[in-house]
C-alpha cells in the first residue's frame, strides 16, 4: 500500500509543479494563428498561413521573434540581425528594389538559406512546409495586403564568355565604383567598407568574393545578375537596373567570377589564360594563402 501512496503523492506533486513552471513562461506567448488564412503560391503549390504558423513556431521564432519583428531570444547574438518581417523589406528578390518579392523569392530564400548569416537552408522541409511558411511570413505586414509584388526583372540569356566581356566587366567594376565597398580585389575591404550600415543601423560587411563562391541570394551567374539588377534591399547595395544595360551586367558578372580565385570557373580559367589575369590571380593567391574557407559547402 505504501508504494501506491508514494506514486499518488509524486503524481500530484508533479501536477502542482507544472503550473509553476508554465506560469514563468506566460509573458512570451506567441500570437494566435492568423485569421483569415493567407495563401502563397509557388510552383503549383498553395501554402496556407495557418499551417505555416505551427512550422514558424517550431523553426523560426528563436531568431525572427514571435511577432516576426526580428527580436527573437537569439537575436542579440546574431549578426547580421534576423530579418524583420514586419517591415517587409527583403534582400533577395527577382523584383525591382523597394517592391515586395514574389512568393517564389521567399520560398527560394528559405530553401537556400543565407550564406554569411545564421540562416541555414531548409531544403529538408517538404515543399508544402516551405510554401506554408511563406504564407505565414506574409501575415506579419499589412504591405502584403495593400501592395502587390513587383514585376520580376527579366534575366536575358547569358551571352558567350569572351575576353572582351571580362575586360569590359573589369572596367565597369571601376566605373561603377564597386571597389569602394568590395575592394579592388573583391575582398570586401574597400575604403567605405568599415562605414557601412544596414537599415537597422547595424554594421554590415560587403560581400567578400575572395573567400566564397556562394552569394547571399544564390550561386549561379543568373543569381549574381539579379543581385545587382534588383539590389539588396535593407543594405547599402543599390540596384543598378537603371545604370547598366543587360549586356553590361553580364560582363560584370563574368568579371566578378574572376575575383573568386579559389573557385574554379570558366571565367577564372579564361582570365588566367591571359598574362595580365594570371599575374593578378597569382599575386592574390600568394598575398594571402587560402587556409580553408568555412563557407564552401
Amino acid at each position, binding site marked *: 500500500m505504501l508504494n501506491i501512496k508514494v506514486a499518488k503523492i509524486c*503524481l500530484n506533486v*508533479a501536477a502542482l509543479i507544472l503550473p509553476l513552471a508554465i506560469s514563468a513562461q506566460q509573458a512570451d506567448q506567441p500570437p494566435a494563428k492568423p485569421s483569415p488564412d493567407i495563401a502563397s503560391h509557388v510552383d503549383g503549390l498553395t501554402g496556407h498561413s495557418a499551417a505555416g504558423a505551427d512550422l514558424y513556431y517550431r523553426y523560426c521564432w528563436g531568431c525572427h521573434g514571435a511577432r516576426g519583428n526580428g527580436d527573437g531570444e537569439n537575436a542579440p547574438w546574431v549578426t547580421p540581425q534576423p530579418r524583420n518581417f514586419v517591415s517587409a523589406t527583403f534582400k533577395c528578390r527577382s523584383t525591382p528594389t523597394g517592391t515586395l518579392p514574389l512568393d517564389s523569392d521567399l520560398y527560394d530564400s528559405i530553401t537556400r538559406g543565407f550564406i554569411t548569416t545564421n540562416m541555414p*537552408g531548409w531544403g529538408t522541409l*517538404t515543399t508544402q512546409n516551405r510554401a506554408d511558411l511563406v504564407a505565414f511570413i506574409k501575415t506579419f505586414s499589412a504591405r502584403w495586403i495593400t501592395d502587390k509584388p513587383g514585376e520580376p526583372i527579366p534575366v536575358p540569356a547569358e551571352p558567350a564568355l569572351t575576353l572582351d566581356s571580362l575586360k569590359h566587366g573589369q572596367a565597369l567594376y571601376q566605373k561603377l565604383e564597386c571597389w569602394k565597398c568590395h575592394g579592388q580585389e573583391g575582398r570586401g575591404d574597400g575604403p567605405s567598407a568599415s562605414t557601412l550600415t544596414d537599415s537597422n543601423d547595424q554594421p554590415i560587411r560587403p560581400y567578400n568574393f575572395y573567400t566564397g563562391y556562394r552569394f547571399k541570394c544564390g550561386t549561379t551567374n543568373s543569381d549574381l545578375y539579379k543581385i545587382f539588377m534588383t539590389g539588396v534591399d535593407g543594405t547599402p547595395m543599390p540596384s543598378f537596373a537603371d545604370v547598366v544595360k543587360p549586356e553590361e551586367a553580364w560582363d560584370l558578372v563574368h568579371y566578378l567570377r574572376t575575383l573568386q580565385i579559389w573557385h574554379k570557373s570558366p571565367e577564372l580559367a579564361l582570365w588566367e589564360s591571359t598574362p595580365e589575369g594570371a599575374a593578378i590571380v597569382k599575386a592574390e593567391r600568394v598575398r594571402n594563402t587560402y587556409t580553408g574557407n568555412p563557407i564552401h559547402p
Partner: protein
Amino acid sequence: MDGSKLINFKGGRVRARSVPFSIFLLLVVAFVDCRPANAIPAFARKYGMPCSSCHEAWPKLSPFGQQFKDNGYQMGNDRDAPIFQSPAYWPITMRITPNWHLEHQDNAIVDGPGGPNSALANITTHGFDFGGLDILTEGTLAHNISFQLVPSSDETATFHFESVNVRFDNILNSSWLNVKMGKFELDNLQSEKRIMTLSNNGGFYQNYHFQPWVAPGVPESSYVFGLGDNQIGIEWLGHSKDDRTRVSASLLSATDGNPAFQSGVGGAASSAYEGFIAGSRAFQVDNLGLQRVGGFAYFGRASTFPQYTTGGAPINGTGSGNEPYYRAGFIGMWYFKKLDVTTMYFYGHDNIYLGTNTPSNAGSAGLPSGAHAPTWNGALFETHYTFNPQMIFINRYELIRMSQQALDSNPGDLGNIDALTFGFRYYPFVSSRTGLAFHNEYSIVWQRKIQVSPTTGLPIDLTSSSLMFGLDFAF
C-alpha cells in the same frame, strides 16, 4: 522509508484505483499552456537556433536535425568552423535524469524455505533515483572535420566512453563521401541513443538486443551483441544534398564496442571484423509529411573458444572458432501530420554453435542432440503524437517470435517477447541554453518460459514492469 518490499501484485492493483485520477490531473495541467519550444544546449548556443529545429521533441531528430548531423554538424553557413565562433564557446552538453521509479517483477526466483532459489515471488521496488550522466561534446574541429566525444557514467559515476570518433565530411566536396573512425552509433534509423523512453524496461529496444535462449534458464553466452550498442570501427556514409537518400557501410571490430578487444568467450574477442550496411529513402506524400523507408543488415562473427590463455585467463583478441550471426530488417517511418508511426521488421540468425554455447573446435560431434541454428522474427511499432514541440505522446509495442529454437527439446515459444511502453514528455520551457522535460512512462515486458520454476520444474514466464516520473534535463 524502505523503498523495497515484497507485495502481492493483485493487491497492489486494487489499491491503485486512484492512480489514474492522478495521471489525469497531470495531463490536464500539462495542457494548460503549450508554448513553442526552442533550443538544445550545445548546438543551439553555437547557431542560435531553437532546439525544436533539429528535434521533433528532443532527443528525437527531425529531418533537418538528421541532415545537420549527416553534414558533420554543419549548417552550411559561416557559423560552422570553430574559428568563426566566440573563443569562449565550448561545445559541451550534460544530460541527466533525476526520477522516481517503481519496478515490478512477477515470478522472480528467490531464496525460500527450501533453500537458495527455491521459491517464487512478486517483487516491487520503488524510490527516488537518478540515471547516468552523458557528457555530450560534439562539433567541428575544422571545416568539414567533425568530432564526437561522449564520456558517459552510470549512476555511481563510473565512466566509460560511449562515443569517440572523428569524421571527415564532404570529402571532395561530395555529400556522398563521409568517413569516420572510432566508436559510434550504427547508422540506425531508429536510433536507440535518441530513444524517447527511459525506464529500466522501456529504455532500449528489445529487438536490438535480443539473443535467443539455449534452453529455459540457460541464456546464450557465446557472445554479447546489441544493434543498439555503439561499435568501434570505420564508417562510410553518403547522402543526397537534401538528405532524402542515405546509405552507409561500416567495418567493425567484433567486440560489441568494447575497447582493447574485450568481449567474447571469457573476455577473449577474436580479431574478427563485422559489417553493417544501411540505406533509406525519404519521399514526400502531399501535405502529410516526409515518409522514409529503409533497410539494414549486420553481419557478425563471434568466437566460441579462446585460442590462448595465460594463467588460465584468455588473452584478449585471441578468440577463435569464429562463427557467424546476422541481423537484418526493414523500417518505415510514416508521418500523418502530427502523428508518426515507425514500423520495423527484424530477422535474426545465430550459428548453431553460438546458439548452443558450444565451442566449434569439436565440430558437430560436440553439439547437443537436437541442436539447430536459432532464428527469430521481430517487429516494432512506435507511434508519436507531437502535439507541439513541447508535448509528445509516445507508444511502442515490440514483439519477438522464435521461428527455430536452438534445441528440439525447447518449448516453441521459449524466449518470445512482448513489450509495451507508453508515456509522454512535456517540455515546460526550453531555452536556447537549456532543456528540461517532464518524463512520464510506463513499460511492461513479458518474456516467455525463460526460467525454470523451482517449485514445479517447469518453464515459466517472467514479467517485469517499470513506472517512471523523471526530470530529464540538459544544459
